[in-house]
């Protein structure tokens, strides 16, 4: 170190492509566009930002501020795939690239900086290498500072088009001091700190580490280290034993992303169990792939919180997706290895007294994974709420493979869907909705088949229902509820009408008529 001060922050360069989720969709940044997850903005183009669209807004709010905003769905796979060329370009400068996520990549600069003749020369070189790859689709901001956290904030706060910024050695605490505490991106912690009157990183950094540890635990200590301009995790000098790496040999070679991704998930689970047994968590992982022709691809991935098994599998999939889609490798993959490159003692997660919630969800996840192996990944599913008119349409089933069962899942609460659905039959909902509704007969008091007119009127009073050649008397009925669905789409257009009936035996059913034929759609079982 050139300064006498002891610092644990590793000098790091960061390349950040702002608004990457929008850029990945190929939308010019001069046009208003926003990317949504679960109806909330997660990224938007500068043009949309100028109109008042902001991250975290609901879709309606964003559209009310900027009516011509393009609404895009989040596609992380695509983001990762399109970001891969940026990482490849940087590979030419240094072998120690760490991708944090699509749009953000960093590397330690000690070696490259010496080679290219200083921090400024290196930063200029990085920009030079990355710019042609982006081909005008987005911009890249380059920053060099002590520590990943600081470098990232430098890149964020830098003004567009000013070129790379180099923060001198030891200047991190000074740079961070005046920034808002919210840059820590730990909403729970920062909301407490703000209430305590600590609104800047500098004021938080001024507290004693011992006090922080006593009050806020491991997470607080980590935030404190970041605020002081140090690295979040003190480097653990114990190198992970080589046998922690997990490997899979493909025979025959795999040439599809799905095949590799499936194996990557299994490997990630295995690695996770090994790490857990050692009491470690992984914060940086190297994913190594070897192809038939002996090519080797290695990529380092970093994650600020410890990487969970599904997060590991995701990264492996992104990386393979990027490689197998670029023309560079036409040959199949013969070997996939996951190496925990940097590990920390797993101390952050507190389990409940009797094996808490997280452990519980892990057990469920393992069972689900086992059954997916047995039945196929589509066969095991979990519910999520959606809008809809039909009796069972408000809940859909998604493959469990795509969902982290241990996480909070907002979309499973019925309050999740707030839009009204005109034409929906009022609750209670029928407990049994037929997957394959049997066709039935509905006749009126004089024995004619009951029809529903285009204006939603019944041709007669329904008196009898014929189910499987047995007739049941209708004791009470309500409706009809007409549903004219997808009238804008000729192929999907459906006109239906529904009727609630109570039969002699006290059972209640929901009947539906479509194109003159009645079906037993659901039962209030």
């Amino acid at each position: 170190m050139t300064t006498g001060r002891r610092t644990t922050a590793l000098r790091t360069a960061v390349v950040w492509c702002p608004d990457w989720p929008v850029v990945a969709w190929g939308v010019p940044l001069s046009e208003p566009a926003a990317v949504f997850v679960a109806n909330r903005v997660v990224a938007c183009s500068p043009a949309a930002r100028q109109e008042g669209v902001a991250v975290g807004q609901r879709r309606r709010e964003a559209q009310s501020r900027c009516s011509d905003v393009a609404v895009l769905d989040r596609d992380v796979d695509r983001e990762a795939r399109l970001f891969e060329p940026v990482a490849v370009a940087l590979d030419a400068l240094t072998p120690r690239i760490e991708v944090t996520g699509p749009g953000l990549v960093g590397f330690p600069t000690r070696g490259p900086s010496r080679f290219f003749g200083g921090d400024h020369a290196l930063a200029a070189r990085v920009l030079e290498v990355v710019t042609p790859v982006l081909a005008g689709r987005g911009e890249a901001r380059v920053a060099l500072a002590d520590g990943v956290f600081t470098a990232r904030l430098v890149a964020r706060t830098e003004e567009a088009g000013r070129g790379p910024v180099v923060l001198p050695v030891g200047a991190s605490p000074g740079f961070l001091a005046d920034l808002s505490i919210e840059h820590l991106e730990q909403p729970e912690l920062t909301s407490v700190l703000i209430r305590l009157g600590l609104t800047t990183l500098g004021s938080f950094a001024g507290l004693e580490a011992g006090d922080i540890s006593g009050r806020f635990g491991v997470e607080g200590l980590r935030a404190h280290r970041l605020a002081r301009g140090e690295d979040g995790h003190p480097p653990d000098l114990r190198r992970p034993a080589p046998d922690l790496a997990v490997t899979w040999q493909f025979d025959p070679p795999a040439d599809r992303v799905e095949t590799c991704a499936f194996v990557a998930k299994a490997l990630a689970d295995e690695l996770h169990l090994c790490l857990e047994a050692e009491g470690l968590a992984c914060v940086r992982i190297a994913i190594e792939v070897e192809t038939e022709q002996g090519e080797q691809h290695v990529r380092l991935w970093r994650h600020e919180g410890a990487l969970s098994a599904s997060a590991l599998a995701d990264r492996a999939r992104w990386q393979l997706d990027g490689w197998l889609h670029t023309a560079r490798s036409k040959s199949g993959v013969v070997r996939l290895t996951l190496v925990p490159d940097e590990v920390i003692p797993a101390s952050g997660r507190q389990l409940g007294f009797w094996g808490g919630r997280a452990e519980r969800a892990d057990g469920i996840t393992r069972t689900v994974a086992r059954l997916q192996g047995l039945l196929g990944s589509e066969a095991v599913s979990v519910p999520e709420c959606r809008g809809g008119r039909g009796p069972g349409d408000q809940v859909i089933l998604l493959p469990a493979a795509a969902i982290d069962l241990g996480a909070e899942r907002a979309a499973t609460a019925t309050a999740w869907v707030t839009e009204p659905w005109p034409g929906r039959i009022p609750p209670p909902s029928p407990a049994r909705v037929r997957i394959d509704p049997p066709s039935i007969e509905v006749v009126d008091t004089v024995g004619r088949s009951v029809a529903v007119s285009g204006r939603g009127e019944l041709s007669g009073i329904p008196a009898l229902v014929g189910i499987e050649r047995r007739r049941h008397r209708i004791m009470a009925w309500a409706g009809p509820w007409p549903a004219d669905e997808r009238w804008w789409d000729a192929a999907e257009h459906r006109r239906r009408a529904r009727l609630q009936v109570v039969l002699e035996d006290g059972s209640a059913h929901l009947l539906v008529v479509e194109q003159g034929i009645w079906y037993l759609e659901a039962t209030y079982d």
Partner: protein
Amino acid sequence: MALPGAPPLDLALIEQIAPLTLTGERLLAVPSLLESLFIWGGIPPGWSIGVAGNGAWSMAMAIWAEALGAEGWIAIVGAPDVNLVTAAELGVRLDRVVVIETPPTKVWTTVVGALIEAFDIVAIAPGGPVGLRDARRLSARAREQGAVLFHLDGARSWPTAVDLTLTGSTQKAGWQGGSWQGGSWQGVGDGHGHLRARCLRIDAVGRRAGRTRSTTVLLPGPDGVLAPFVEP
């Protein structure tokens, strides 16, 4: 006996420091309106329960909502007709539900066996008859793991007797004096209104039920959840 001048007992604290309950003695909670159907006032882990008759599935769902609480998990196997919208209306937390729609017959036992090891409740509706050996093995494993098996088909295809069968029935509906006297559903008439509430009588029988127990409730009640039935 309270000493004069002593502070009142803190009941919440007493609950916390009370001697711990062994897993074998732990009961899965049931809705208080249905407690009288269960000889222990709850479901002992490892029991198998069949639901049959009118309102069978609503009954099962109302029990799940209470038994699972905030942390329990349920798997529903081989019953693609189950409408989870209704389950959510009756209070089941959908983020604790895993569904396996129709497992192939030859791996059915393996699937249910694996689920019993991880889930608190496994709801099944076998597509065909279950072999005696498989049934005994699954029941034994459920008792060992403390999982509750719910037979959504009233245990029709199960070769051994279940611990408890709950059968729902509604009063016969009929026309009396020109107006409809619905013993079962309220809120619906002659072409108007919509289904709102159902008066359901539930009978509990089985080898572990003791005597036959029954109760009458509104399921669903006017608010969409289980409600007490008040004699008019």
